[in-house]
């Protein structure tokens, strides 16, 4: 019985922790300078951060603090999303990852298993993630849209957006 209570308490705690990135937060992204909630930072698309720890005076003295290996060759053509200390990114071959932004340590990694013979126009790149609630959304090279759980990287759903054979 005690254990049932314990489990119920965990469940309640989980529900309480559920509100992660609401639509209201996305709308008011300019009030969250420490976060980067959409591809361009906010809906106005300025790609401008009001943070000033790094500025024109010290930008030339930036030094490497950590490196994170995506474990694949290729290139990034994307902007990461940052929410409350977690950096969400995507890379070559539809990889996605969540890392501790301060240390570069991975929280989870996801890799899409892609079919052979894909010939996208501009390399096997991924152009970034979007976030809402507890889900990250990614468009894949085989023309699916998938949702990943922000905290675990688990696949939440996966739908076919188009037939990649016809590309």
């Amino acid at each position: 019985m005690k254990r049932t209570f314990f489990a119920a308490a965990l469940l309640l705690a989980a529900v309480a922790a559920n509100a992660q990135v609401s639509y209201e937060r996305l709308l008011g992204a300019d009030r969250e300078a420490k976060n980067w909630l959409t591809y361009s930072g906010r809906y106005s698309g300025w790609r401008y951060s009001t943070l000033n720890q790094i500025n024109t005076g010290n930008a030339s003295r930036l030094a490497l603090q950590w490196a994170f290996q995506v474990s694949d060759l290729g290139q990034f053509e994307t902007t990461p999303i940052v929410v409350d200390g977690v950096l969400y990114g995507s890379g070559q071959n539809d990889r996605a990852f969540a890392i501790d932004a301060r240390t570069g340590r991975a929280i989870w990694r996801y890799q899409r298993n892609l079919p052979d013979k894909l010939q996208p126009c501009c390399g096997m790149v991924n152009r970034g993630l979007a976030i809402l609630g507890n889900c990250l959304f990614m468009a894949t090279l085989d023309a699916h849209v998938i949702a990943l759980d922000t905290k675990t990287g688990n696949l939440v759903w996966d739908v076919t957006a188009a037939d990649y054979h016809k590309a």
Partner: protein
Amino acid sequence: MEERLGLRMGLAASLLMLLMLFLFARVPLAAGGQEASSGDAAKAKAADAKEGASLFRANCSPCHGLGARGGGRGPDLTSGRWTHGSSDDEIFRTISQGVPGTEMPANAFEDSEILALVAYLRSLQPLSQALVAGNAGKGRKVFENAGCASCHMVNGGGGRLGPDLSRVGASRSVSYLMDSIRNPDKELSAAMSDPNNHYSVTMVYDTVTVVTAGGEKITGVAKNEDTFSVQLMTPSEELRFFLKKDLKEVVHEHKSLMPSYSESVLSQSDLEDLVAYLAALRGVESGNAKEAK
């Protein structure tokens, strides 16, 4: 001279004896010949399995676990259940081409290496597990009532603290599932690892308690850790990251946050039903996840 002749005759006589022995012995020897060659085949198989074992350890164990008993990502291959085909040809194809829609990649092995891997996996078959006696439908109810979903996700629904169980039936043996429920501390489940980095330390679902400089104690599941930092998920599914230089103490408890479901909490028949339900969880095919729900 005489002596030498005698010696020679003696030699010839013994040669003749040997020849006769050989002739008489021919029939049984020939019959035994086949046994000898099948013995050779068994030896060759054993040699293949041995080579396969070392290939497996180097290439497959980061996901499938040492001894193929299942890891954080890859299925237990000793369960006797083959989700993607059980014939040698099918296993060969699974290894060489991977399984689209899962994390199993294609592999650039020589054919002989894949055959060795198949021989190794076949050599593990005697370890296959007991059948599930329970009722999966009832087990689903047990899963809901026992609060499992508060920490475990199945097909996109449920908690995040413990491992996702959407494919647990494909990846874990029945006896492992039984053990995990009755005694979660016995063998902590492996968590995220980098499939392309065979040298990384495998994280397990260990309980870690940190004590901050202010004396606050925070307990959670370690998601990652190195010399300088530790990343936790708390029971309320909060991600909390710490630099060790800011902490008074980091305690690895070497036990699971999951309560152990002893017989007083979960009867043997409920356990069997629950395991039958879990054993039937094989994930959903890519592209149909939404429709399947």
